[in-house]
């Protein structure tokens, strides 16, 4: 019997990432992991790329994971889980396992967009029955906020610091969700912890689909974003409502916007509370704000067009 999608019912389920882990207070990642694991009706085996989530949840003899979990290295959560899932298929075929088990990989944006991209692309192409979840906080937060290809345009990081000549990251983000959709896998989605019901629904749907699935989830990081520790959900909501982080899914090639804000907020509402964008509000950087807004508008426009909801 599937758990009805209500907070009351979900709250009765066991939380499979225990408290006591060492993620920073106010981090989006453990919230996302808990939501993902609550969404599952199946036993899960998880793989984790090296990163904040990994170094903070399994230290020496202490693990926060109540499910089987493997960390191998930074760039290979997808390849590692490919091996786990393949062994599962082998043993199931041989009649040595009878349970239905689902496989989920967790990686940050560095381990997914950048160093782990080949491993992810390969695993998706091979068609492993797994869900890869990227918790995207927009930089290498674990090593101290260095820019990744997921870092937003203009953001100040420790390797693209806003200076007198260069004003933060000159390039726009890599659109990984679209790239994963271009793999023609059965399910790709973007989600945000602010919209928990949308997120849980997408995970549930993904786990019912056989084959490779990818979800990109916005994960606020108060250290890197230079925001208040209690603003994670507020910021991820603003990311959605400004259409900086549109919520949508592409199921068997069909694009569907799953949340359309009643009133699309200006991007500055998302940028203003974050210290990493502070320099963009200097009068001489007005043009950058304009460029950034145009990028967001363009992506949102093309998404609406693709989903036929213009």
């Amino acid at each position: 019997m599937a758990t009805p999608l209500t907070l009351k019912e979900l709250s009765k389920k066991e939380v499979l990432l225990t408290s006591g882990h060492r993620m920073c207070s106010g981090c989006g990642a453990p919230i996302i992991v808990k939501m993902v694991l609550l969404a599952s009706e199946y036993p899960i085996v998880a793989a984790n790329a090296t990163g904040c989530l990994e170094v903070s949840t399994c230290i020496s003899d202490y693990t926060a994971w109540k499910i089987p979990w493997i960390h191998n290295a930074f760039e290979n959560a997808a390849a590692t889980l490919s091996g786990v899932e393949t062994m599962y298929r082998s043993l199931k075929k041989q009649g040595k396992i009878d349970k239905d088990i689902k496989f989920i990989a967790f990686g940050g944006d560095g381990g997914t967009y950048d160093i782990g991209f080949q491993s992810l692309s390969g695993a998706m192409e091979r068609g492993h029955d797994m869900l890869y979840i990227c918790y995207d906080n927009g930089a290498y937060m674990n090593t101290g906020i260095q820019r990744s290809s997921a870092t937003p345009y203009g953001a100040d990081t420790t390797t693209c610091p806003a200076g007198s000549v260069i004003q933060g990251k000159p390039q726009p983000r890599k659109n990984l969700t679209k790239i994963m959709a271009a793999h023609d896998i059965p399910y790709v989605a973007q989600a945000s912890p602010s919209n928990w019901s949308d997120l849980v629904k997408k995970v549930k749907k993904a786990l019912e689909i056989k084959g490779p699935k990818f979800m990109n989830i916005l994960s606020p990081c108060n250290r890197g974003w230079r925001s208040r520790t209690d603003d994670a959900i507020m910021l991820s909501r603003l990311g959605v409502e400004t259409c900086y982080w549109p919520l949508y899914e592409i199921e068997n090639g069909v694009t569907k916007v799953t949340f359309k804000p009643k009133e699309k907020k200006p991007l500055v509402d998302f940028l203003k509370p974050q210290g990493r964008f502070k320099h963009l509000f200097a009068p001489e950087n007005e043009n950058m704000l304009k460029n950034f807004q145009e990028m967001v508008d363009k992506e949102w426009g093309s998404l609406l067009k693709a989903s036929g909801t213009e």
Partner: protein
Amino acid sequence: MAKVVAVTGNEAVAYALKQVNPDVSAAYPITPATDIMQRFTSYVSNGQVKTEMVLAESEHSAMSGCIGASAAGGRVMTATSSQGMALMWEELFIASGSRLPIVMALVNRALSAPLNIHGDHSDGMGARDCGWIQLWSENAQEAYDNTIQAFRIAEHMDIRLPAMVCLDGFIISHSIERMEYIDDDAVKNFVGEFKALNPLLDIEHPVSYGPLILTDYYMEYRKAHAEVMSKVSKVVLDAAKEFEKISGRKYGLFETYRLDDAEIGLVILNSAAGTSKDVIDSFREKGIKAGLLKPRLFRPFPYEEIGNALKNLKAVCVLDRADAFGGSYGPLFIDIAASLYPHKNGPVLMNKIYGLGGRDYLPGHAELVLNELVDIAKTGKVKMIKEYIGVRE
């Protein structure tokens, strides 16, 4: 009943893998190892093995997949060479540090640059300190026999470490030899059922693999690894004893050839040992007491046993098919010298670097070296301790 066949080294290894019939293999093509996986995947496609393949997009992912599959709880193997192993580098340490009994055929090949696809030992020597067991093989028969034994050694409950089986690229991998295959059932019984240890797929007993361990306990883990390494020799010898029962072939930690009463000797790995043995025979016919030692278990290195086997010789040449740039000597020489360190009156040593990038090692080279050893045995003097042979000046 053993079956006599004429096969290449790669074919023999692929056939051993078919007989072992692992649960999963994750692999990526690279010359000269490609042929092993080509042959093996045809067994998969024709339903002759139960193995599920992960045809990965790189060697890094191939070894990552092997690690995931092994941790999941089943028997796992792969094969690679040279650059492929170099790309796996990081993962080799993670496989051994996680105590996963993966078996890998390493078809030895030179490392770039310059690009060269032929046989030398640079790849295997580079991986000597990564915590894997290494078994080296002279010919197709040994590569086949070592492959079968590697599973039993790696998966032994006292060990649980990954093992690589080394054979010379092209010289062995692509040359046809006469050899014997053991019966399928005998191989199956010899390797036995795979026993999972803390498998990820046991969802009733969740385990975490790959923790962060800093200054407080990291060193204890490393020491534990070193202690396990010290138990490998015994398991290798036990496996060899059992293997002799099904094959009639004897294996030890190393092979000695006419070494018991020898005054001069060669120490040499893999295929070049075969060439050297012929030349040793011709020196013996001349009344010169020459012998040979060919290491088999290179990691962990049996220092004590090898030191004892060589201590009474007058002069020994260690031939290395790899150099250790910036170090004084070739990698095999360094270990041989270390094994003789406790023996004050041990032999005079010299080191020749030969056969890099597949350069031929001919009987003439062995003759040259043995003649030099004859002089050294007389005079006790070495002209040049380390030298490249078979090379243009």
